[in-house]
């Protein structure tokens, strides 16, 4: 499970470059709501072909849910019986979101609260804003 998360993180770290290169109009976000919007309507749309809906904002506006309607990564996936049921297959997406946002100086926490693979009705991903990273140099540039 950890391994999926770190694979995702590595992907996210590189994906953000690709994303910014393809979408030159995307600038700095003014607030977290704008970040959520771009993440769903442009990020997910480009790379997974889906646009999850954004709901369940926390009152403070620092945490939201993404509802994934169908997920191309899990199209043919069935969790095996037994211990395999605990596997968080989608963890790779969490890692990618964290990695990508970290590269634009936003530290977030990302986790799945509901997962269709585990028999829930929908797949819900929770993203929580932790802090703005300041003066964070990219790895290897210190």
């Amino acid at each position: 499970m950890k391994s999926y998360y770190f694979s995702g993180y590595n992907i996210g770290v590189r994906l953000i470059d690709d994303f910014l290169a393809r979408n030159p109009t995307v600038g700095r976000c003014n607030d977290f709501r704008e970040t959520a919007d771009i993440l769903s309507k442009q990020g997910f749309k480009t790379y997974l072909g889906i646009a999850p809906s954004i709901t369940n904002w926390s009152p403070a506006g620092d945490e939201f849910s993404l509802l994934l309607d169908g997920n191309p990564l899990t199209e043919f996936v069935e969790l095996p019986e037994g211990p395999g049921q605990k596997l968080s297959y989608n963890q790779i997406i969490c890692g990618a979101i964290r990695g990508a946002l970290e590269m634009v100086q936003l530290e977030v926490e990302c986790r799945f609260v509901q997962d269709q693979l585990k028999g829930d009705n929908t797949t819900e991903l929770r993203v929580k804003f932790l802090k703005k990273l300041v003066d964070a140099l990219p790895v290897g540039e210190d």
Partner: protein
Amino acid sequence: MQSSARLRSSTLDRSLQKTKGDANLSTFALLFSEMVQYSQNRVDNINDLQSRLADFGKHVGIRVLDLFFYRAGKDKREVRLTPMLVFIQKVFWKFLFNREADNLEQHAQEVNVFSFYLDYLIERECLVNKFISVPNDKGNLNCASFVAGIVESVLCSSGFTCKVVAHQGTRGTTYVINFDKTVMERESRLDSK
């Protein structure tokens, strides 16, 4: 226990028809790169790395062939060698990569009494290698072993037992298909009818 298992909507309940557009190339390339890195951390030499990638491919190939027949609604399967290879080069490659493989060649070789054929499937620019630059110290690594694995399991599960190896040549990636003796014997038996 049983009723909860039944309520759960499984992947088998979903339609097999293709619903969305093609996968994004960047997403694929990054996922593939993670697969290569994952494998690389678990092996000590290039050959093991390639066979690990081929194993991934075999899992894909056997399933994707089934999926192809469901989606294409084809009810004819090839039983002769050459039509089967042409099918892979043209139709199946298009299904996987949205283009045909560039070339198909047959090279006769004589070993002892048996003369057997090595079939070459050639691709100038391989999709999985598009963003991969092989470091100098890893000389003959070719990540298209993954694709070789797909081809091998497609052929094997269609009744053409074989070994497929990916080579990096001057003309791009060459998949060398080495058929089992039984396949060649069957072919010559069918030829003589």
